[in-house]
């Protein structure tokens, strides 16, 4: 808390008010990420099958955490009208939005947070993923249509408070929820050209969710409908991991 003078004055005035509550409220006014909003507060260490130790946010970045970045002038997107502040995941995030948040968090953190890889995400989520549905078309000529989902996603589309969905045995919440999470994996086409793409110009990234999805880096709201896709994610959000397990 580098810039907390107003908070301190406020605390002196209030005397016996519960310190934690005030600190959380005040955190939205300070420039640097407050510890109360730091990913570290709600994170667990998960050991992946390859022995890699990963520190994982137990929940997706919340509206309150996001708004602190916005209030600090480091995130462009304001989550307006989110009256359920604090309890809900931050959604409507594009890939550049997530990068703004990561930069802000890391600028003042001893821990280097990042988006998970698609493989990391898949392994984290494995045990809470629903059974894979059968493709609706099996003819190879129709693979372009086989992704179409005729069943609703089990999580529904209405946003629910953080923690409303399942928890893995490692203690990670909501991986099976209706917020798809950006991963750092670039998807650059089916032709094997992917490696040639400058990562800084990646046109689309893989997002983790009930079904893995590829989204253009620009998209904040994967609109329902349109004709070219089968089942777009309901919402787009983010969860941070770090290698400092």
């Amino acid at each position, binding site marked *: 808390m580098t810039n907390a003078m107003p908070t301190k004055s406020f605390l002196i005035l209030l005397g016996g008010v519960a310190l934690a509550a005030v600190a959380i409220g005040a955190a939205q006014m300070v420039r640097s990420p407050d510890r109360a909003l730091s990913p570290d507060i709600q994170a667990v260490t998960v050991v992946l099958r390859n022995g890699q130790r990963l520190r994982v946010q137990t929940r997706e970045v919340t509206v309150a955490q996001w708004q602190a970045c916005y209030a600090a002038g480091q995130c462009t997107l304001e989550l307006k009208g989110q009256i359920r502040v604090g309890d809900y995941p931050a959604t409507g995030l*594009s890939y*550049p939005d997530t*990068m*703004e948040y990561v930069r802000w968090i*890391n600028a003042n953190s001893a821990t280097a947070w*990042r988006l998970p*890889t698609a493989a990391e995400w898949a392994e984290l989520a494995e045990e809470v993923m629903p059974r*894979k*549905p059968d*493709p609706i078309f*099996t*003819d190879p000529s129709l*693979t*372009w*249509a*086989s*992704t179409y*989902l005729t069943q609703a996603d089990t999580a529904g589309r209405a946003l629910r408070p953080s923690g409303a969905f399942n928890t893995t045995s490692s203690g990670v919440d909501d991986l099976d929820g209706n917020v798809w999470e950006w991963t*750092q*994996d*670039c*998807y*650059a*086409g*089916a*032709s*094997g*050209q*992917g*490696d*040639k*793409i400058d*990562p*800084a*110009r*990646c*046109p*689309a*990234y*893989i997002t983790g969710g*009930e*079904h893995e*999805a*590829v989204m*253009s*880096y*620009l998209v904040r*709201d*994967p609109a*329902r*409908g*349109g*004709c*070219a*896709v089968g*089942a*777009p994610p309901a919402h787009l959000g983010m969860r941070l991991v*770090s*290698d*400092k397990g």
Partner: protein
Amino acid sequence: MTKFINPGLMKTNRRNVLRGSVLAGAAALTGAGAMARTRAPKLDIANAISAKLYKAAAKQTADSTAKPADLSGYTRVKQEMVAPPYAPVHEQVATGGPKIVEVTLETSERLMVVDEDTGASIWALTYNGSVPGPLIIVHEGDMVELTLRNPVDSMMEHNIDFHASTGALGGGGLTHVFPGEETVLRWKATKPGCFTYHCAPGGAMIPYHVTHGMNGAVMVLPRDGLKDRDGNPLAYDKIAYIGEQDYYLPKDADGEYIAYDVAGDDYSDSIDAMRTLTPTHCVFNGAVGAITGENALKFNVGETVLMVHNQANRDSRPHLIGGHGNFVWETSFSEAPLTGLETWFVRGGTAMAAMYTFEQPGVYAYVNHNLIEAALLGATAHFVVEGEWDNSLMEQVSAPREFAA
């Protein structure tokens, strides 16, 4: 019209700047790899939206039951694309058997000035660098074999949906190309008429791409050419290919049009502007004045023009001021043309054709006869016609003069 070329592998885009900062921190602390890794693609193009379901699809072992296309009897020809308002070299009445017409479209993202007066510009998403994309002309029964190429310096994925084609979302499901990729799609032109084509990469990206210029027209002529309702042949001397484009350009707090560094940077602002359903510009061939003044189309009295009008997104109502639509095909060439129209209708999401033979010299204005759109938003083109004035059709009997009250 000023045009700037995409600055290619420009390093200073927003994502790069952001990622660079992140990288510096992350690498220093952990020695970890790049923040954004490029993963070898595992997904089928058309399944890009759902890897999980793709994996299910990948287990398919049965062969397709679809029979191979019989291409015997077809002759391969190449059609060189030309920029609008012009049409490619073609026959009005087909000679010989059916053809496989090979065309190439390149998805190019380029900064284009929409209105020189205000400096309003857009990172247009185009086929072959023009708005609209080039006109493709084939005959009923021909096949179009399209090579769709996305240059490596593109920011975005593109594809194409041909309204004239049958299946796979108009080919949209089979043509997703990422930067550095190309794909080839063959489809049969079974219905005669003018049809729009446009990019449709999914979700909100569909109207974003379409309102950034990524649309054009295919004309599928009857093999024996155009005819009136009695079956008499109708021929034209020239084609005027007009692509009407509604743009929704974001403005800043002062009402100035915002300039963006790279294609795609305007995405969020554009989505907000598009939601108003109120275009800031409605222009012919990409920019205000693209077919006026020095760019006006030129004809002679006695010449017949076929005006092919494409509007991929919203309705329009062209009117040729000082002339008419002698024969108008609003829907299909299988229908008898409407005759003697003052104004005709372009259903949003279609291309259509109107034919006129010039009877008087001078200047004609071809407008969207919502005159607000024509005069204030840009939807005006000019035709300059040379020839002999016909006093029997019109004569100024008396020049303006004072009259006694």
